[in-house]
């Protein structure tokens, strides 16, 4: 039963790659920025409906939250636009692999320093080795 949820998590990654690949095609025809815009506008609509039915939290916290907590959208649009521009040039495999490496390195730094409200966790030797291995594999893919 549990293994079913590993498949679900695996699928989550699969759809992420599909998304990047398809948007890069859409970007070629309607424009890169326009393709990202489409994602954010329609994503808002879908999530808006989902929120109406299943939202359990409080959206009103938005006005009280410290401003840095509201920057998720900005970070997201830069990320997606980079992918839409980059995938037609380097392919989905390499683009996704470098995203993952950037993510791993950054999350280690965030944890190590306790930035952005993260609990402070000292970086372990295993993780440094892991990042080194990932960088080697990036060069192999490149």
């Amino acid at each position, binding site marked *: 039963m549990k293994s079913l*949820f590993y498949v679900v*998590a695996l699928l*989550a*990654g*699969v*759809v*992420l*790659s*599909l*998304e990047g*690949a*398809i948007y*890069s*095609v*859409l970007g070629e025809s*309607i424009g890169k*920025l*326009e393709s990202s*815009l*489409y994602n954010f*506008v329609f994503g*808002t609509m*879908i999530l808006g409906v989902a929120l109406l039915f299943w*939202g359990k*939290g*409080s959206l009103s916290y*938005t006005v009280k939250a410290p401003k*840095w907590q509201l*920057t*998720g*959208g900005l*970070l*997201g649009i830069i*990320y997606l636009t*980079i992918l839409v521009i*980059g995938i037609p*040039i*380097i*392919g*989905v*495999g*390499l*683009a*996704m692999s470098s*995203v*993952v490496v*950037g993510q791993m390195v950054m*999350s280690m730094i*965030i944890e190590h320093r306790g930035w*952005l*409200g*993260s*609990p402070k966790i000292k970086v372990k030797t*295993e993780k440094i080795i*892991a990042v080194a*291995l990932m960088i*080697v*594999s990036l060069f*192999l*893919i490149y």
Partner: protein
Amino acid sequence: MSIIILFASLIGGILLSAQSSVNGSFSNKAGTLESAFLTFITGGMMLSIVVLFFGSGNLLTILDAPKWQLSAVWFGVGYLFLTILAVPKIGVIATNLSAIIGQISMGMLIDHFGWFSGIQISFDFKRMIAIVLMLIALRLIYKANMKAGNERKHLSQQSSQSLHRFLK
């Protein structure tokens, strides 16, 4: 050119990771769906302004775009829902690492068969070694995170935070 794109994608990953921490802190108070919604709506507003001034494409051609291309929006939102399903059963760390495996394997499959776009990059021996190294690296990260979770009781806190890695 492609080395620049490689570094840009690395920066993309860095931003994504920062975003998951930012959204994690926000959603602790506001909720998961609320945090996703805020990300999309503010992203949409900012991009509208950017497109208005710098957009060189034609937004109206979206009406002529094949529907399968427009379906990509469901995949981004789908990622969110699939992780919400998986996290309570297998934990955040396992969910994130499994998703990475799915992401990279699918990426290479798309490249190999040249699905969707014109670009086609065959799966070769070098890529196979690269995947093996990635798997070893992910295994190491998994072990290190599990240790960290046992040492400190931070795991549950960490969970709610990294749950929000999903949004772009």
